[in-house]
């Protein structure tokens, strides 16, 4: 790999970069310096202030502009004679089909979400173009090489489902701060400022369900003649006081738990309403929505401070008031956005008051924002290192230097003296439904489950298809597309509401379904097995998909985490939002004792129960053993590529 020897391969190459963010900026720069001359780059995002600490091709003056386009301009300043083609678009757009992908010699991912990664993986497989995949979080990162038929594809190991929490934990028995954040963001914020038609579990269900929920609906209505301060306090007293009292009345719940304390606004605020809470004058021009801030009107400055219960109560009431006075038009359409200052203030305060009620430690706005926005830690250095490693692998791919392909991990703590650890890629997983033809198998109650359940939970959520087509033999059961006529659309809509065994072509035990996504050119087969009963706790979806992973226990575990929505609701309560920046390094617990010379890690399996999807853990005492964030359990034996 002498500097100049690679030039012919690099000069003639046409490469596609997906993502112009943290990794993307570094990658585009490094590709240009390394002599690449034909680079296409797709990114749907625009530039934000919090990008500027690491996405060094962007400046304050670029905020709001297309990342792909600005990145191109910036790189042309030091390499003016190369061709960079930007697309300010979603990589999932139908323009970027298999033919589009086929024009490239290699595809380089610098993405921030699982969905797009899976999509690109499938298109690369369909177009038979090598893919180099990457991700970073804090000081950790990894680069992997995926070449069809030769190395494992991005999906050969199942990916973790977004983190979800059981509904009852969120609504009734929070034990961690994150539960309070979820409650504040997904339930309270959504109830007060979001779409009124959305189902919402905010109110505590009492035994006489129907009537009390009717009453509760009215509680959240802002009556026309009602003073806004009065309204705020009424909401406060209802959710932090009354609802807790109702919950306390259910003795069964508190047998083995600490009882929460109801909190009423009168504890902190004199009832005299003439005492203004904040001074609105400090809130800039009324038409500048982004500057509306409860912290500003209360004269609070440091987002790192942990507020007292009284301060949280003041922020809560002030933020609520500001929404109604300054942003009334948006009420009914708001969803939580981590870049919406007032929303972050409201959610922080509400989560903290609830935390206080349940005896959970309070957190600063800065911390709360990180949790609520699923903000991933990101620094420039790791992205730069990862970009360098991507280019090194890209050059090997272009030279067809297959023996030297490596997956490389960038570590925070050295392992066997290594901070950058190369590992030989693994062979494709022969039971991977994405890159092999092995059928999957689905246990489902064919007399009870509707086609809709199957489409939503299996085809879309688990298999990640966006434009699916479902066939039973030659009969079409369902399809999505722009070119369908009305009759077909009506037909498919009717099918969705039928149980499987009552479809025009009945799906019963032993049926083999073919599922295709025309855009991804992915096709897989599912063998249906009827099963009467499912464990409500462990299998709340009422379906068990298997065959994808090798170890049966792993499959079960995987399904459980996907369906971890709890058993009290039909709706998954919380779905982690897309990461702002990157995926967590997909690592498995690997014994690295053999790595030093031969790069020969001996794999050991993971005990499913020790998994902690929130934290990257390193066992300090034994530097031969590392546990990364396990997004999946590792089959006992994986073969390395030969």
């Amino acid at each position, binding site marked *: *790999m*002498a*500097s*100049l020897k690679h030039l012919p391969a690099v000069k003639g190459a046409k490469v596609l970069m997906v993502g112009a963010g943290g990794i993307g900026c*570094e990658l585009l*720069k*490094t590709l*240009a*310096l*390394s*002599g690449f001359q034909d680079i296409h780059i797709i990114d749907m995002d625009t530039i934000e*202030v*919090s990008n500027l*600490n*690491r996405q*060094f091709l962007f400046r*304050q003056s670029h905020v709001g502009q297309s990342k792909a386009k600005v990145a191109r301009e910036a790189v042309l*300043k*030091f390499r*003016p004679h190369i061709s960079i083609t930007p697309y300010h678009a979603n990589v999932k757009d139908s323009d970027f089909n298999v033919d589009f992908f086929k024009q490239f010699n290699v595809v380089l991912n610098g993405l921030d979400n699982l969905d797009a990664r899976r999509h690109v993986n499938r298109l690369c497989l369909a177009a038979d173009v090598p893919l180099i995949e990457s991700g970073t979080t*804090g*000081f950790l990162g990894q680069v992997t090489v995926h070449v069809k038929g030769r190395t494992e594809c991005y999906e050969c190991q199942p990916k973790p489902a977004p983190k979800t929490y059981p509904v009852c934990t969120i609504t009734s028995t929070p034990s961690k701060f994150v539960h309070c954040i979820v409650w504040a963001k997904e339930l309270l914020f959504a109830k007060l400022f979001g779409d009124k038609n959305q189902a919402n579990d905010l109110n505590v269900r009492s035994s006489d369900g129907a009537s009390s929920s009717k009453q509760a609906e009215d509680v959240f209505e802002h009556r026309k003649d009602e003073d806004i301060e009065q309204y705020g306090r009424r909401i406060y007293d209802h959710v932090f006081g009354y609802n807790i009292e109702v919950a306390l009345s259910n003795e069964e719940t508190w047998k083995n738990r600490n009882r929460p304390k109801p909190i009423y606004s009168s504890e902190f605020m004199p009832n005299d309403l003439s005492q203004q809470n904040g001074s609105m004058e400090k809130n800039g021009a009324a038409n500048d929505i982004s500057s509306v801030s409860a912290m500003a009107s209360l004269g609070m*400055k*440091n*987002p*790192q401070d942990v507020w007292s219960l009284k301060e949280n109560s003041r922020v809560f009431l002030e933020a609520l008031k500001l929404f109604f006075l300054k942003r009334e038009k948006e009420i009914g359409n708001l969803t939580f956005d981590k870049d919406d200052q007032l929303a972050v203030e409201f959610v922080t305060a509400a989560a903290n008051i609830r935390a206080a009620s349940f005896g959970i430690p309070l957190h600063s706005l*800065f911390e709360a924002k*990180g949790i609520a926005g699923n*903000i*991933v*830690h*990101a*620094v*420039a*250095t*790791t992205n*730069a*290192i990862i*970009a*360098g*490693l991507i*280019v*090194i692998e890209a*050059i090997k791919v272009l030279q067809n230097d297959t023996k030297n392909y*490596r997956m*490389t991990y960038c570590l*925070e*703590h*050295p392992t066997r*003296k*290594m*901070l*950058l*650890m*190369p590992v030989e890629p693994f062979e494709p997983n022969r039971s991977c439904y994405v890159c092999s033809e092995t059928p999957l198998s689905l246990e489902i109650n064919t007399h009870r489950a509707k086609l809709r359940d199957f489409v939503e939970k299996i085809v879309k959520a688990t298999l990640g298809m966006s434009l699916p087509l479902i066939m039973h033999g030659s009969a079409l059961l369902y399809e999505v597309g722009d070119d369908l006529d009305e009759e077909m659309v009506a037909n498919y809509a009717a099918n969705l509401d039928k149980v499987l065994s009552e479809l025009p072509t009945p799906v019963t035990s032993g049926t083999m379904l073919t599922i295709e996504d025309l855009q991804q050119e992915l096709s897989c087969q599912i063998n249906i097995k009827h099963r009467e009963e499912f464990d409500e706790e462990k299998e709340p979806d009422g379906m068990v998909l298997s065959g994808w992973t090798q170890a049966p226990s792993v499959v079960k575990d995987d399904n459980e985490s996907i369906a971890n929505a709890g058993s009290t609701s039909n709706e998954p309560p919380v779905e982690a939002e897309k990461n702002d*920046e990157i995926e967590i390094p997909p690592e498995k617990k690997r014994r690295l004792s053999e790595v*030093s*010379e031969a*790069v020969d890690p001996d794999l050991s399996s993971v005990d499913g129960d020790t998994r902690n999807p929130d934290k990257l853990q390193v066992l*300090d005492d034994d530097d031969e053993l590392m546990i990364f964030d396990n997004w999946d359990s590792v089959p006992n034996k994986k073969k390395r590529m030969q």
Partner: protein
Amino acid sequence: MDGEELTEQETALYDRQIRVWGAGAQRRLSKAHILVCGITGTIAEFCKNIVLAGVGSLTLVDDRAVTEEALSANFLIPSDENVCAGKTLTELCRDSLKDFNPMVRVSVEKGDLSSFGAEFYSKFDVVVVSCCSFTTKKLINEKCRKLSKRVAFYTVDCRDSCGEIFVDLQHHKYSKQKREEAIECELHYLSFEESISVPWKALPRKFSKLYFAMRVIERFEEAEQRKPGELSIADLPAVVKLKKELCEAQSLNESHIPNVLLERLVTDTREFPPVCPIIGGILGQEVIKAISGKGDPLKNFFFFNAMDGKGIIEDVSGKT
């Protein structure tokens, strides 16, 4: 110093990295002064990283003119001749770096490194030296060590697809997270001269081959009065001869310094562009760790070789 708060602007700009290293570390970074001697592609990467991270100031020293080689791996130099006219290499880099983060003071200092006295070096918390002779590295390191304040010293070199970082933090106290609690640690470093004087025989058995190869090249350039990197394939026989002599004197098996590795290092002395962000990234992280006093710092050599893809830490402590 922890009493001072970050400004609203800093909090917004540095949000993602404060989540990695904390507000205290961010405050310490904003008060740190960094000196960089010798502009290379790797140094350009390093400078970008610490300017983005939000250090207090960065001072650049390098009197060389803009050459084709300087351009080859350096994204800080615009290709527009009108912009470049009349400016030195360091001035062009300074202008680009300032643009990356207006909150960091970036400046240029002219003059010969070896002529700068103690007073000059005492203005800095971190000194990074690149593409300097062996003698200059030792000299600057000694000057830093004699100061009453502690200055973190680094050398960084990248040849072909190999890179080396040397670290001297003298006596470094820091904290690290162990499970839930922060524990206090302390490390003692050897100077550059002390480190490279450790007998090769005393080094661990599987020590990085790159370490020895770099020492051979260093000696060769010194003996021949060459500037760093002023080598070609024509020098290989003489370099191999020197290797033999050194191995004999140090009782090291010659196989520890493969001739193919030496050949690479003398043939392609330019930086391989994708290696620059890797070495510059590791160096950036290390400097941030040293300033913030958080996390285990590297002790005391780091090697990266794109051929095997390993990034290895070697501790030359003289203890076996």
